[in-house]
């Protein structure tokens, strides 16, 4: 039991940090634009595919370095030459644009790389068990995923809260006019935030690609969960997004590991059930089967009890 708990906690942590790498960029970009960027997970997917192609020629590590830069540059260009223009036509236009972009990226990925799953591999250097606990192995690659995400977050947190440029970014996101009047180039700052946000999504794609498989549907799979996280955490709140990411990562991981079925739960609650019950299909669902739905269940609960999200503020 303990080993299951330890391992699903570690795996949940890996997933949670990965989710936060997407959610942090998405929530920052939301505070800036005022709308959710539906194409955010597409940048994650591009990260994985770019890194895959680069890894074939130059190896995994070159991909880790170059792919996020390419994705970030692409993100910055999208902001500069498309979103900024669309922004003038209001929020609905922006939403429609990001929807369209998500489709476009998915089609482009299928066109250039094909519809099949790519054999994107984690580097040989990290193909060993980091430690063995209760006879179960924890791979070095997962340890690497935790290290790199935590490292990036600490650096970003320090940059955002301590440095002058971080303070300018914080202020520009909420009061762009005031900051512009003090002599700061706010459009450039927004382009940079968009670039860094999408580059982060790119990093997530690079390191998740080998574990969660690299295929054209990967953006959709993760995208919806990341939206849920950003809403649960409270739109625009980095702290809220962090808590929600870890919560969902752990929740899913525990659910999958528990291997409990409805009958077990019902028995545990002291209820009897019979096989010929009309709702038998529902009864025989196991917790791992409903794990993918849990984030949405949590979303509904949060929206019922705390409509602004965990850390969200009520709009005036």
């Amino acid at each position, binding site marked *: 039991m303990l080993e299951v708990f330890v391992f699903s906690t570690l795996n949940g942590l890996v997933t949670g940090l990965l989710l936060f790498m997407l959610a942090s960029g998405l929530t920052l970009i939301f505070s800036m634009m005022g709308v959710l960027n539906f194409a955010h997970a597409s940048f994650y997917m591009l990260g994985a595919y770019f890194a895959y192609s680069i890894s074939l020629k130059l190896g995994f590590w070159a991909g880790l370095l170059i792919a996020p830069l390419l994705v970030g540059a692409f993100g910055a260009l999208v902001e500069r030459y498309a979103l900024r223009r669309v922004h003038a036509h209001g929020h609905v236009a922006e939403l429609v644009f990001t929807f369209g972009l998500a489709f476009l990226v998915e089609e482009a990925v299928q066109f250039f790389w094909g519809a099949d799953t790519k054999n994107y591999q984690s580097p040989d250097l990290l193909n060993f068990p980091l430690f063995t606990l209760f006879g179960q192995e924890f791979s070095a690659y997962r340890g690497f995923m935790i290290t790199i995400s935590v490292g990036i977050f600490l650096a970003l947190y320090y940059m955002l809260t301590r440095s*002058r440029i971080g*303070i*300018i970014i*914080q*202020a520009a996101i*909420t*009061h762009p*006019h*005031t*900051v*512009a*009047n*003090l*002599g*700061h*180039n*706010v*459009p450039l700052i927004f382009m940079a935030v968009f670039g860094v946000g999408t580059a982060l999504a790119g990093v997530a794609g690079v390191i998740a690609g080998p574990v969660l498989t690299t295929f054209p549907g990967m953006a959709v799979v993760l995208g919806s969960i990341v939206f849920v996280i950003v809403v649960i955490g409270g739109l625009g709140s980095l702290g809220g997004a962090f808590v929600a990411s870890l919560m969902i990562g752990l929740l899913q991981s525990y659910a999958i590991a528990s291997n409990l079925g409805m009958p077990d739960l019902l028995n545990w609650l002291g209820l009897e059930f019979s096989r010929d019950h009309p709702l038998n299909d529902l009864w025989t669902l196991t917790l791992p089967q409903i794990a993918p739905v849990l984030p949405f269940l949590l979303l509904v609960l949060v929206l019922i009890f705390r409509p602004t999200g965990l850390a969200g503020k009520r709009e005036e």
Partner: protein
Amino acid sequence: MLEVSALNAYYGKSHILRGVEFNVKAGEIVSLLGRNGVGRSTTVKSIIGEVSPQGSIKFKGEEIAGRPSFEIAHRGVGYVPENREVFPTLTVRQNLMLGIKNDQKKPRWTMSEIFEMFPNLAERADVSGGVLSGGEQQMLSMCRTLMGDPDMIMIDEPTEGLAPKVVEQISRLLEEIASRGVAILLVEQKLNVALRISHRLYVMGHGQIVYEGTPATLKLADEIRSEWLEV
């Protein structure tokens, strides 16, 4: 230093500024007076580029109308907005840091000088801006703009809603700013403050300049005061 001519501005369809003309010379304190809603704030917002202007705004001989705000600020125009806009979640020191521009050389004021001038800001350097009193927030907002070392500073109603003692402090700061060669365009409601510190004054009415003079001439112009200023 600043020459505004034929300045028009609109909010949507409503025509707010109707051919505003005035100027500010280097080192001068110039006040823009007028009743509520005549367009004084709109005038300074047009100059900084927050409201899009039509007409001509020349600063140091160069046309700035239609340029982006950050660029106008970089050319040396400072702006302290009417509602102060102190960032409540940032500390006093961080608020001041926001005022520093990139590639700024030898500014007239450094942060330590600002703290020397305002011991109450220094004491609360690491307190968040949101907990300061109205007067302290006004000081902070003005000092934040000074950190960017403007050659001309536009201040929108700095004494609004403040106690006489604080008003006194603010007019001393204004004189200190002018003594370092910074031109001031002051939007004011309190006639006594404007009369005491200004070199020249303009009175606005219905989106136009209706009077230009000095404190001495305005004191004698009873009909101007009763028609455009007194309530």
